């Protein structure tokens, strides 16, 4: 696994660009880590430690160089009830268990399940994530003095207009610094990060979560851990795909899953919340020139340096500045193109996308939205494929034999159409069912064929089946009842 060649390719391909990108990402991680901690209802410390720990560990053990992982909104929105009901130590325990679940998922190669997540579901996931990040900012934007809106607008103005002047400094950082300085010196009375909870002043230390090690605890945290693990892996796999596309390089998805697990496992012991890959930050990383493990590593280490050294200053940052940055991340994450595409794409794709978004925003659980999207796209697919089914029939010259030619895909969704294609009322001596151009996919299809044959035989019609191709034949042999002992007289051709 480790060799000079991989060291060169995955760490040292372009150190200068990677280090600069890592620093930019670290600066962009601060507001998010704090913001997501607030979403989850914990001290900013928890999110900051998590972001440091996850980024550094994933840079060593992850499977997708250049991807940024840290504390994320997707996980944060899940854990709020757990913290409200049981306290923050249960969050640490759930994070550790989440890591274990993810490592197991990695060994089970569950990344292969991503094949069944269609593009529409992914778009829906991304859009829902952007909406969740935005919704999470609403408490900071409702029932606050007018001044807050002015500050947020000013922050957004700096973020989007500054890059037109210079691209040498991260504009979100400039926005934060400028707003903080103004608020501090003018003495404006607005909420600051310091009001939101305790900031770290030291290095994270190893801790064992203060929870009773009982079955009851497990029952409390397991549902959360499973959902956190699922959501974390989903977002990580999607982000890995995005980074793959942007850099046009490959990644080891299975290793990434295990890496996410290891990172979360360790982070739980450092007093951090669970995390996963971040779409917005990873795009920022690539945009800033980062493409190797080095940039992720630098991002994590520089973040730790910033929070330990600049902790007291961070407390002075007005919440309005963070909200502006989070709105930027939300806008950057949302797939605006998908709105335009709704008109051109098949309606089923749009429905899948919208249903995914609606369910996520409704339940605040990305896993449920994705599950709904996957099920729905499966149903739509089945309904499309069932149209690939035709039956033609022809009567013999003497009028006693009818040949049905069945073609296409026969499975659960098309079995009704299969039965409806036969005319059981017609008086015949022999019916020939030619299935040489058909595929029997499942036991529903086989059962339907059985049903049709038995129905004909009850009317005294002899049934012959020809051309069961190899795939269908195995299914029929294995499951059908019509030629097994107990079924009436034998069948023609069998």
């Amino acid at each position, binding site marked *: 696994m480790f060799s*000079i*060649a991989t060291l060169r390719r995955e760490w040292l*391909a*372009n150190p200068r*660009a*990677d280090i*600069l*990108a890592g620093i*930019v*990402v670290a*600066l*962009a991680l601060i507001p998010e880590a704090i913001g997501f901690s607030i979403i989850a209802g914990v001290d900013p410390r928890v999110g900051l430690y998590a972001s440091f720990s996850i980024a550094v560990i994933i840079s060593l053990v992850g499977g997708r160089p250049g991807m940024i992982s840290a504390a994320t909104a997707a996980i944060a929105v899940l854990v709020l009830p757990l913290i409200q009901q049981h306290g923050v130590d249960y969050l640490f325990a759930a994070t550790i268990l989440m890591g274990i679940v993810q490592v197991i998922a990695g060994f089970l190669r569950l990344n292969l399940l991503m094949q069944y997540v269609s593009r529409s579901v992914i778009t829906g996931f991304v859009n829902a994530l952007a909406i969740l990040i935005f919704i999470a900012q609403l408490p900071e934007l409702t029932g606050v003095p007018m001044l807050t809106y002015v500050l947020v607008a000013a922050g957004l103005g700096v*973020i*989007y207009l*500054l*890059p037109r002047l*210079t*691209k*040498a*400094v*991260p*504009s*979100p*950082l400039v926005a934060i610094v400028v707003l903080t300085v103004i608020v501090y010196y003018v003495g404006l009375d607005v909420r600051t990060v310091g009001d939101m909870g305790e900031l770290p002043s030291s290095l994270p230390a190893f801790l064992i979560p203060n929870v009773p090690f009982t079955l009851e605890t497990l029952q409390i945290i397991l549902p959360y851990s499973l959902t956190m693990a699922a959501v974390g892996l989903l977002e990580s796999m999607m982000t890995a795909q*995005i980074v793959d*596309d*942007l*850099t*046009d390089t490959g990644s080891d998805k299975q290793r990434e899953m295990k890496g996410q697990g290891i990172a979360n496992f360790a982070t739980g012991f450092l007093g951090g919340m669970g995390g996963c890959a971040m*779409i*917005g930050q990873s*795009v*920022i990383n*690539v*945009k*800033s*020139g*980062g*493409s190797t493990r080095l940039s992720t590593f630098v991002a994590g280490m520089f973040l730790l340096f910033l929070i330990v050294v600049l902790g007291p200053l961070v407390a002075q940052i007005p919440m309005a500045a963070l909200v502006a940055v989070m709105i*930027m*991340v939300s*806008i*950057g*994450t949302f*797939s*605006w*193109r998908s709105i335009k595409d709704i008109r051109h794409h098949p309606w089923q794709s749009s429905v899948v996308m919208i249903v995914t978004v609606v369910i996520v925003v409704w339940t605040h659980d990305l896993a449920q939205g994705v599950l709904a999207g996957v099920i729905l796209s499966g149903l739509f697919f089945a309904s499309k494929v069932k149209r690939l089914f035709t039956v033609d029939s022809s009567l013999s010259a003497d009028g006693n034999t009818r040949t049905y030619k069945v073609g296409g895909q026969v499975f659960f969704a098309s079995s009704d159409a299969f039965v409806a294609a036969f005319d059981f009322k017609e008086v015949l001596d022999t019916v020939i069912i030619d299935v040489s151009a058909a595929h029997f996919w499942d036991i529903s299809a086989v059962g339907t064929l059985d049903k049709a044959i038995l129905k004909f035989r009850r009317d005294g019609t002899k049934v012959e089946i020809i051309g069961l191709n190899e795939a269908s034949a195995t299914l029929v042999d294995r499951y059908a009842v019509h030629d097994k002992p107990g079924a009436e007289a034998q069948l023609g051709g069998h």
Partner: protein
Amino acid sequence: MEHVLACIDASVYSDSVCDLSAWAAHKLDIPIELLHVVQRHEAVSERHDLSGAIGLGAKSVLLEELTKLEEADSRLQVERGRALLAVATERLKAAGITRIDPLHRHGGIIETILEREEGARVVIIGKRGADHAFAADHIGSMVERVVRASTKPVLIASRHYNEPQSVVLAYDGSKHADHALERLRLSALFTGMPVHIVMAGSIDGKHRAMLDKAAARLDGSVAVTTTLQQGKPEKLISDVVAATPGALLVMGAYGHSPFRTLIVGSTTTAMIRTVHAPVLLVR
């Protein structure tokens, strides 16, 4: 069917690689696969945008921009590669080779060579790549990496081609050297060529015996001379090679791990660097 894998790029060594490949293909009576790898110019690290701001459709805008940056350059590289392959094919045809299989691939140089060497009898590369500004007595980093990673014999072309007339075998009595000797004895590449076995070390009975044993293994089918002399191996061998017209140096490749080499340096690398003749490295 086995073939000679000739790897060319835009460096001055490509002509020599072609001539050497033609010689090897004639001797072995097998076709040539002529490989040129198009290396993409990486745009990701070249953008100087540290603004860290992402706006509407950040992902697709970035993807489009990166594609645009890389597209033009890649197209140019592909054109250049085609021209290189055409010139090389002509050169091989002129040398009387009829079975030529030009191969143009995208990807990393090392990865592609390793991928293609599967069916190759011997891999032939230039001593330095196109990216290397010419500095006398240097060896390209790619060359060293190919030699380390490859499982096939690698023939490194020098800048000027002289048809190989005789073989100089660098011998130190090690397992690698014995293996090189064995290949030398069996390969059709060297049939009938006189062999000069050179050993650097104190002139004593032990070394003399090793050398005689090695000479005996070539069992008199070819003319064998031996030299045992005190001194640095790279100096001694490059002197012998320089004194032998049409010499081709054969030796076992890299006995030590990359880590050890990092500290103590490598005789193999030093030898490739100093010798102005084709070098065949045997694994």
